[in-house]
């Protein structure tokens, strides 16, 4: 477990390794964002709308 020592600076902009890591984190995130949303969510929102409308 790491100590929660506060640091005031983002060092990613000065360290090429950390910059590389940040790029990969963005890639990893983007992979999921771009994979498309399962139909279940559209259906769920539609159901919620119908319930709302019937009130």
């Amino acid at each position, binding site marked *: 477990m790491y100590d929660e020592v506060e640091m005031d600076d983002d060092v990613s902009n000065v360290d090429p390794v950390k910059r590389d890591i940040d790029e990969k984190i963005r*890639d990893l995130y983007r992979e999921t964002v771009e994979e498309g949303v399962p139909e279940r969510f559209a259906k769920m929102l539609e159901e919620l709308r119908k319930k709302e409308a019937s009130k």
Partner: protein
Amino acid sequence: MSDPDPRDEIVEHLPSLRAFARSLTRNPARADDLVQDALLKAWSNIHKFEPGTNMRAWLFTILRNTFYSERRKAAREVEDVDGAFTAGLSEKPAHDGRLAFRDFAVAFNQLSVEQREILVLVGGSGFSYEEAAEMTGIAIGTVKSRANRGRMRLAELMGLSDADSLDITDQATVAVMSASKTAAA
């Protein structure tokens, strides 16, 4: 003319909510269940959303709170460390950069949930440190610390650099850190 319904905006944020959920749970199926729970809460509490404010941050905060609430309730956490964020990822060519993409995803999953959360908020989702601090209720210095510790741990897991560099002892970083301490004093 009536005001636009903020619920219409929710659907736009589903992809990023799923990515955030996946980084927290490390399991695609659990992540989608978490998104569903968060959506239901958001829907029923939409009157608490202030129009004109950041809907994405509001939804992320609900999802995060839901995750930690469910986590506390669970007797133990069962995590799919190997599947996780990597499930469903496409294979990227081995030559695209220093890090093998899939290896990186596996390493990422080995971070603590607190580190993954902050790195995805500021690194993946593009929130500022200030926004991440507000969303998580954590001091901004701690948010930055977690982000940097997470990056260092990832570098360590990937064997990317020698210990000196990872311990933030390179000259440029030391200069920045020293300047900060001086300014804070």
